[in-house]
């Protein structure tokens, strides 16, 4: 899938005006093994970048890395060397004494044509060497993106895994009293910056999800009276009904190639089955046909399987997680824990399924392997649900209502690094974009 998308991504990168023009790779001795059970955050020193915009950019880089839970930025007051030339090798001994494992230096300047030039260098202090150096050009509007791209580069150089900072989140902005909540589609950067509204709040909107091409979302809206699944082009605002089904359609998600939307369709008898619709040919495929609530379908990243929930196992309300072929073949239950399971979402890495579980009067966010084994609960609360994966499969975002209204929260796979996502109003149903690149 990656190779098919690559040419498109390059074009997208050009369009937003962020171009990497120089990379200076070096052999890595500095490593952080994120697959160990207990990761100690790596002490990292990030002095203010040079130039007028420099401190703003380095502050965003610092915040990204800190929130990941994998890095511990060192208090600037402890720094011994004052960096005046970000291109020159630092005095390694000065950084060793404050136990900085890594040092990031950088500068930001304005070009004659108005663009921003941002560059950074990553230094391996105990290896006495430069680990990476890159520079980027960007339009003014993309200042924050440059910072996120630099944070992603540092994250990847040190952990060996792709970052997730240059991403966006689409969600439902909620305001007003609980019995008359106004719900609007909104989009923002993963750290809560740059919020933009995508609907006016007149109709209830729910469950937005990103297309793999990042340009559109699928969601459910009551705008026609009957709740239905729609597509929305993020930049143009163009909307389109998905399919011409007689009843309510809900719980939509894209296929990994972006060509299909999979969703639930209400049957006349009050039960719900799962359908996939090809967005080009408009042909629909029925994947389940049961007198049960079959919903919340989510494709595996290779598109060959679908995870979903069903109460077909009997016992009122005992919703459980099932996996079937993408053609509906061989549905089999994979969740057997003590509780009710819902909202399964396949990890972009393919290795795990995240879910919401109700057990003992609590709502839990957890993960299990794709055969249902190895269940781990990452977060518990009175009311929380709806996990979405960061594109690198290491962090989940979900929404939690601690009384009053819902807010967004992220948690990493260790379950130890929980972070609130700042939003102006109440917020629910987050969906993480792929890396913007």
């Amino acid at each position, binding site marked *: 899938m990656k190779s098919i998308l690559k040419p498109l991504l390059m074009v997208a990168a050009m369009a937003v005006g962020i171009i990497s023009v120089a990379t200076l790779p070096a052999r890595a001795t500095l490593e952080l093994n994120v697959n160990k059970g207990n990761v100690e955050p790596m002490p990292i020193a990030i002095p203010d970048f040079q130039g007028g915009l420099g401190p703003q950019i380095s502050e965003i880089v610092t915040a990204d890395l800190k929130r990941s839970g994998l890095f511990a930025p060192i208090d600037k007051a402890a720094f011994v060397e004052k960096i005046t030339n970000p291109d020159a090798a630092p005095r390694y001994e000065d950084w060793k004494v404050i136990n900085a494992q890594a040092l990031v230096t950088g500068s930001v300047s304005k070009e004659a044509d108005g663009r921003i030039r941002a560059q950074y260098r990553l230094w391996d202090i105990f290896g006495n060497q430069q680990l990476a150096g890159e520079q980027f050009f960007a339009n003014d509007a993309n200042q924050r993106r440059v910072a996120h791209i630099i944070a992603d580069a540092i994250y990847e150089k040190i952990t060996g895994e792709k970052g997730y900072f240059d991403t966006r989140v689409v969600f439902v902005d909620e305001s007003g*009293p*609980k*019995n008359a*909540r106004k*719900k609007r589609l909104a989009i923002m950067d993963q750290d809560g910056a740059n919020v933009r509204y995508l609907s006016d709040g007149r109709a*209830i909107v*729910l*469950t937005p999800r990103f297309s793999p091409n990042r340009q559109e979302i699928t969601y*459910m809206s009551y705008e026609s*009276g*009957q*709740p239905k699944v729609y597509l929305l082009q993020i930049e143009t605002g163009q909307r389109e009904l998905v399919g011409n089904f007689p*009843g*309510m359609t*809900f*719980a939509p998600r894209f296929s990994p190639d972006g060509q299909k939307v999979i969703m*639930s369709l*209400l049957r*006349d*008898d*009050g*039960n*719900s089955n799962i359908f996939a619709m090809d967005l080009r040919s408009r042909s629909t495929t029925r994947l389940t046909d049961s007198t049960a*609530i079959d*919903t*919340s379908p989510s494709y595996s990243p290779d598109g060959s399987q679908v995870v979903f*929930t069903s109460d077909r196992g009997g016992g*009122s*309300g005992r*919703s459980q997680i099932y996996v079937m072929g993408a053609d509906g073949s061989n549905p089999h239950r994979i969740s057997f824990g003590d509780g*009710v399971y*819902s*909202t399964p979402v396949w990890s972009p890495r393919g290795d795990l399924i995240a879910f*919401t579980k*109700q057990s003992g009067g609590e709502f839990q966010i957890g993960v299990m392997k794709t055969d249902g084994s190895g269940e781990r609960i990452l977060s518990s609360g*009175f*009311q929380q*649900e*709806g996990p979405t994966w960061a594109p690198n499969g290491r962090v989940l975002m979900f929404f939690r*209502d601690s*009384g009053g209204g819902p807010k967004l929260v992220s948690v990493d796979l260790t379950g130890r690094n929980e972070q609130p996502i700042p939003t102006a109003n109440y917020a*629910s*149903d987050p969906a993480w974009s792929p890396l913007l690149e």
Partner: protein
Amino acid sequence: MGRIAALTRNPAMIALVAALAITGCASKKNLNSPGDLGLNGAGAATPGSAQDFTVNIGDRIFFDTDSASIRADAQTTLARQAQWLNQYRQYAIVIEGHADERGTREYNLALGARRAAATRDFLVSKGVSGSRLKTISYGKERPVAVCDDISCWSQNRRAVTTLSGAGS
């Protein structure tokens, strides 16, 4: 907030508040309908008016947790609804299915739909024409009771029979 919390502890009160609110809407829509004289107090609703239906018949039934089964008390209400609806055939009907907040959003949309369908099917079994009946699910998106405990959840697990105006 304190006042709402106090009201929601009393199911009868909340039903009345909801009934008044709904009648308020209906009376606006049907200003020219001869049957609807607006708010004259609960007992004085004109027979055949939307207010009569909501106040004297009862426009809603309640469900057990995670269930779409029509309970015995609900069967009584629905039988009364059916009799009334068969008498006043000018109304088209939309049945709203709702869930409490103790479930996830997508599951609750499906559960609300199942409750609305079960309610519709019961009314049809009592002779109400299926062609007059539409259903819609609001999942947990439109609670009437807004506290965070059992007293509210039981009020929110409901199906509401709404008269969508003279269908004639």
